[in-house]
């Protein structure tokens, strides 16, 4: 488990894929009770969105799909905020490069988030996600 204080990401299972194919990788995120993270589409411009990016390498990012965020009202905001709470899953659609080297490898993802509870906020953090790969 790549862990920080309030958010953890389950280590992804090894993926085996052929060159030129597209794969879907699920990233289960576990958030400590009482905390929320801003969604990928925050309600206010000053809020830091949730972002999952994959480093350039054997996999090319086609898209990253987030679940539907909740709208939650907090004491510190006049309007409900678009957030994720509890456990949720992010799905990445990745294409294995046609010229990627075959054999075992690793893709590196970075999940940037900014968490708050009902009355305070934690600085933005980045969790690294290591995806073991076997390219055929």
């Amino acid at each position, binding site marked *: 488990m790549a862990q920080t204080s309030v958010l953890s990401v389950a280590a992804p299972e090894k993926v085996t894929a052929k060159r030129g194919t597209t794969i879907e990788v699920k990233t289960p995120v576990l958030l400590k009770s009482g905390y929320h993270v801003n969604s990928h589409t925050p309600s206010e411009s000053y809020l830091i969105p949730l972002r999952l990016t994959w480093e350039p390498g054997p996999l090319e990012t086609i898209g990253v799909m987030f679940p539907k965020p909740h709208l939650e009202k907090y004491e510190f905001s006049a309007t409900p905020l678009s957030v994720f709470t509890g456990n949720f899953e992010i799905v990445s659609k990745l294409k294995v490069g046609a010229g990627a080297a075959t054999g075992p490898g690793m893709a590196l993802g970075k999940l940037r988030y900014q968490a708050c509870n009902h009355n305070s*906020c934690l600085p933005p953090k980045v969790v690294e996600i290591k995806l073991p790969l076997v390219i055929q």
Partner: protein
Amino acid sequence: MSSIYIRVLVAACVSAVLLLSACNSSNPVNAAASTKPEKDRKLAPEFELKDADGKTVRLSDYKGKVILLDFWATWCGPCKIEIPWFIQFERTYKDKGFAVIGVAMDEEGWPVVKPFVTEMAINYRILQGNDSVAQLYGGVEALPTTFLIDRSGKIAATHVGLNGKDDFENGIKKLMEGPGIVQERASAGLPGRFIPAVLFGAN
């Protein structure tokens, strides 16, 4: 029987009064964090940070004043609630030996902090914070984290998270009544002038 009835009635009334007073509190989030007794206060760590003009500012520059030291960031919702209160405190008490210092903890620095300061019309000094200074103040993991510092430079109260406006203001007033003298010059048509307590050897 009537005695039991009266006792139940009294207990119900007391509960109702307590409940009402809790609901009326202007500190809806945190329990009141009153200032510590003087003997329990520790010296606020000295720091050196830059303001928006690039000028070096030290905590000791404010020696003799009551200080509200606020660690905040532009991405912090609860901080945005407190900032207008601090603007008001600065306006109300700045001539009475009080100052607000905001320490911005944004990693992106002035390019994001300066526009925010303008947008919020912040009238007190903002400094660009860093991890070293945060560590001096216990790490400052959660924002806002606010310290009330007395005139002898000691931390009298620490608030982590959104706090009540009245709680801050009561603390400020209490600390301003502490050692130190505000020389009223109203009779001369001049603003009150603060004479730091340290000049008089009070500590």
